[in-house]
């Protein structure tokens, strides 16, 4: 869509439309797409393209959008990589222009991109339930359940990006209450707003798109060296803000500059210190070539959560589950290498878990950590193939030493 003002040709070519579920937004978007000849790209389209271009699993990308936890993310940083890759996909489409991003992923477009109009389509919950009943044939209970789940994902997403609620007006240029105005009025309102929107010079829009692309490329490159980095670019002059705990600051800054300079389009790079920066330290530095993936299994939540935190401080990446069945499910879906396992748990006990793991995934080393054990229990566990048997409360150094030995065994078996 081109608008002309005296001596200036301007373009407003990107719409992002976020909506609550069952707010009749699809109709509005289809009409807008036809009216302005815009391509409509949904979250699913963007995820599909990102999966294809960056070889990231679809399930992982969906997990990120739903704000579900990703196992071992402290080590793999898969979540951060997914977001960088999604931004790259978005930046490619923003460069092309003339599109409507329909969904939550439009929030990844930086606010510095001024030629994007951000729209929210929302309605009262009761109306949304009614829409679902009328148009999708759902029962009230089913509709409410789906709405609550969808809203939860939306809220978690914007909370993680902006620390704001999903329907907060400050995130949008215009809010369309689809329960108060019909589709025709909604389309007219958006079109009118588009016409009134302050627009910028064509060259500046082009530069904004280029800067966005550059930011996305830089973020992808920097994912390999660390997280908590905020990237800004203005005509190729890049500023990277270090906004997290860092141990060797100067070395880290040099690495950032070195990596960023290799990206085509970068004119200059400088680093800044963010407000969340502080000098970190670790208790003991275990140098793992490939960090261990550890699963902690214990029904005593307070204990295992504290242990988890202490292990992470010592660079032992870990995840927690609270019962035997969850442990077995986890090993089916994820890839732990070492399990720290309690014996006495409700439901499937530790003996059963140990037996099943050693039968189905014998490469996983299991360390028993129990408050209960007798000599007979120890003998049983060792016969079942446990790597070690420790009594609670065990010293943290003993636990980490045992894990290190398990790691050495695993590495030796790989060779």
């Amino acid at each position, binding site marked *: 869509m081109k608008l002309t003002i005296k001596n200036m040709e301007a373009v407003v070519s990107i719409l992002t439309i976020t909506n609550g579920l069952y707010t009749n937004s699809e109709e509005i978007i289809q009409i807008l797409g036809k009216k302005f000849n815009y391509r409509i790209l949904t979250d699913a389209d963007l995820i599909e393209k990102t999966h294809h271009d960056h070889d990231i699993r679809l399930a992982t990308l969906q997990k990120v959008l739903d704000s579900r936890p990703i196992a071992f993310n402290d080590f793999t940083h898969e979540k951060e990589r997914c977001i960088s890759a999604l931004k790259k996909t978005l930046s490619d489409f923003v460069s092309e222009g003339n599109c409507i991003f329909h969904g939550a992923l439009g929030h990844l477009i930086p606010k510095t991109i001024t030629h994007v109009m951000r729209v929210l389509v929302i309605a009262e919950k009761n109306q949304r339930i009614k829409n679902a009943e009328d148009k999708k044939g759902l029962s009230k209970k089913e509709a409410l359940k789906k709405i609550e789940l969808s809203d939860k994902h939306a809220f978690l997403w914007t909370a993680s990006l902006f620390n704001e609620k999903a329907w907060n007006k400050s995130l949008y240029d215009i809010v369309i209450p689809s329960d108060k105005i019909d589709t025709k009025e909604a389309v007219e309102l958006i079109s009118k707003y588009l016409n009134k929107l302050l627009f910028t010079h064509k060259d500046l829009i082009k530069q904004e798109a280029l800067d966005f692309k550059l930011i996305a490329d830089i973020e992808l490159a920097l994912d390999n060296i660390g997280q908590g980095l905020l990237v800004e670019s203005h005509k190729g002059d890049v500023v990277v803000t270090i906004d997290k705990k860092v141990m060797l600051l100067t070395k880290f800054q040099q690495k950032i500059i070195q990596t960023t300079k290799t990206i085509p389009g970068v004119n200059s790079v400088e680093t800044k210190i963010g407000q969340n920066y502080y000098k*970190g330290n670790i208790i003991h530095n275990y140098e793992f070539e490939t960090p261990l993936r550890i699963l902690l299994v214990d029904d*005593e939540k307070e*204990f295992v959560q504290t242990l988890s935190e202490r292990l992470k401080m010592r660079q032992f990446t870990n995840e927690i589950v609270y019962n035997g069945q969850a442990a077995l499910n986890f090993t089916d879906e994820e890839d732990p290498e070492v399990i720290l396992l309690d014996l006495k748990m*409700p439901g499937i006990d530790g003996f059963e878990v140990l037996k099943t793991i050693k039968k189905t995934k014998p490469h996983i080393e299991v360390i028993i950590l129990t408050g209960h054990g007798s000599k007979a229990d120890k003998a049983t566990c060792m016969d079942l193939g446990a790597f070690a048997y420790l009594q609670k409360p065990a010293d943290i150094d003993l636990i980490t030493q045992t894990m290190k030995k398990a790691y050495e065994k695993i590495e030796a078996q790989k060779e």
Partner: protein
Amino acid sequence: MKTRDDATAFFGQVTASTTHEIQNVLAIIKENAGLMEDILLMNPDNLPTLLENLKRCIGKTKEQAYRGVDLTSGLNAFAHTTDTFLAPVNVYEIIKNLIFLTKRFFLQKGIKLALTDCNCPPSIMTDPVLFQKILWMCLKCLTETMDLNTNIIITILTPDTGNKIEFRPDDPTLDNGSFNQRLSRSAKWDDLERTCKQINLTPRLITQTLPGISIGLDQKS
């Protein structure tokens, strides 16, 4: 093969369950103390985060300390029930304490014990050890007859509403007839009857609504 008598076995199982919990409490306190040490080593430059983390650890340690005190107090009260052969027993309090000490044991089998409130709990003069043993046997009898992962509801009926204790699995699908048949045929039922006889109490199978066991508190001579 030599086996312990029932009372000893009962005391052993209750003590094992409680001490397991106490061990967990101490393990948590130890880990929190260690975490506080780690935090002091980790964050010398970031005072607000340091203070927040330490406050969190101290809160958890305090909570666990209180939990530990409750457990040892409960175990101490349990141990003192061996002091005399005849004492006034507050039925509600003794059941409440027994549930508190043994909930972990039953949770291992996916069973939660729920004691309904009682405004004026009855009190009886009896052998506290045997009385607790009877309560324990009722729970074990039910546990071994019903499906795991079902809860047990314990109701105390006051002298004007029946003067008894009822133990019922919280499962509306249970068939009264067949369940009670299984119960009465188990070896544990015979043991229960024998033990109740020692202190003049009567176990009965509940035949109305949900099945279960009731212990009448009218002590017949």
